């Protein structure tokens, strides 16, 4: 079902309704969406919406207020797709999905085994339980990764703090990726296709780096040189 106005498109997809925004002013777009909903409230009742925000750069206030307004109409906003990394980060912080099951475009897939030489993602705070970080390159966390937090990186992950959550390095298949932490005590560790749990539960972590050696996940104390 395709419904179009000059500024927004609404389309039925497998995961619910896909609402695509153009480049107009954010307030105009959200008003247009609410008008659509008010015209046929019963149709939208209990709907699950994926918002394609295009190139809009959105902060916490905009997404939270949109989510709340939709919620008052009985609609759940569960995912936000975006070309802007700021918007994607905001959505992730609010617990919204930033991908739906079908990849946006086949051309976007990262080639396997390439360690990204772009800038690493630098996260300057502790990741609390329920936080999920996804990034195609290397990730550095300047803080702790708490139990219940997840870091999924195409490249390597370094935690300048306590690693007690879940890390998946080399998530696109890169077996050269490594995981290191000042206090290495992950809930679960994955590099490329391998998964492992810590040998001693709740032990205090030491300064260690984990890597894949001959298909096995090995963690060893960090030695320079």
């Amino acid at each position, binding site marked *: 079902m395709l419904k179009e106005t000059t500024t927004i498109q609404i389309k039925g997809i497998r995961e619910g309704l896909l609402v695509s925004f153009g480049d107009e002013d954010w307030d105009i777009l959200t008003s247009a969406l609410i008008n659509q909903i008010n015209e046929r409230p019963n149709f939208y009742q209990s709907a699950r919406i994926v918002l394609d925000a295009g190139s809009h750069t959105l902060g916490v206030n905009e997404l939270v207020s949109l989510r*709340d307004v939709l919620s*008052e109409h009985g609609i759940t906003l569960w995912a936000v797709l975006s070309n802007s990394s700021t918007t994607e980060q905001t959505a992730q912080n609010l617990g919204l999905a930033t991908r739906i099951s079908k990849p946006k475009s086949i051309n976007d897939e990262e080639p396997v085994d390439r360690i990204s030489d772009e800038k690493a993602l630098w996260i300057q705070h502790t990741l*609390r339980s*329920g936080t999920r970080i996804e990034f195609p390159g290397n990730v550095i966390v300047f803080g702790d990764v708490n139990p219940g937090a997840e870091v999924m990186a195409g490249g390597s992950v370094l935690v300048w703090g306590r690693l007690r959550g879940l890390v998946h390095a080399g998530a696109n298949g890169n077996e050269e990726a490594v995981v290191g932490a000042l206090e290495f005590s992950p809930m679960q560790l994955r590099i490329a296709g391998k998964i492992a749990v810590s040998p001693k539960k709740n032990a205090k972590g030491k300064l260690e780096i984990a890597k894949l050696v001959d298909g096995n996940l090995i963690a060893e104390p960090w030695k320079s040189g």
Partner: protein
Amino acid sequence: MTASVVTVTSGKGGVGKTTSVANIAVGLASQGQRVVCIDGDIGLRNLDVVLGLENRIVYDLVDVVEGRCRLRQAMIRDKRLPELYLIPAAQTRDKSAVSPSDMVHLCDELRQECDWILIDSPAGIERGFRNSIAAADKVLVMTNPEVSAVRDADRVIGILDAEEKGPASLIINRIKPAMVKRGDMLSVEDVLDLLAIQLIGIVPEDENVIVASNRGTPMAFDDKSRAGQAFQNIAKRLLGEEVPFLDVENQGFFQRIFSGRK
């Protein structure tokens, strides 16, 4: 007087939010403050029971929001203290009956009329939680010294930070000094190590909670109750007083001072 809106939430159910809202309210009202409690747990209301006011409910929060009564008509005045009121939740509806903006409007209307608005949040991180934090000036996160509760508290604190409702303050409830000493229970330090937010209260496990709840008489009325005392202390700290924390190991008091309201 412009009220401060304080919400008590936890993520995990059963950690003691309702008990603490009732007791902190009694603590504040005993110090001459005008307090309105709001039960945010629509469909599973409990604050009325714990306060002993359930048989006096005529109108509730949903009646106010849907315009069937004026705000004042839904406020039940506690007969034991001059300035303690409750707006109960509805039992025959669910959390979709109220929205975050409804709560903001309601609290705006109440702000000029009292010193404190205490909101009892339901468990979870969905609509009821969102309703309860929408109007909050300050959020108190409650946890037990127990791994599942701490995980959930961490999640909630993260959500509060992400939505710019922080920084939250922490209440550690139901701590058992003997178990901590044996190493069978997380210590205050263990919990703070993970949650890393400011502590506003430590409340010991006290079986009188159940008796008090059954009678509808919050423990803060009883000077001999240690849990009641702890809740009174939280009320004092909200008022800006420096009160030493309960020393869990030695059953005395130690000098970790909480530095008051900002």
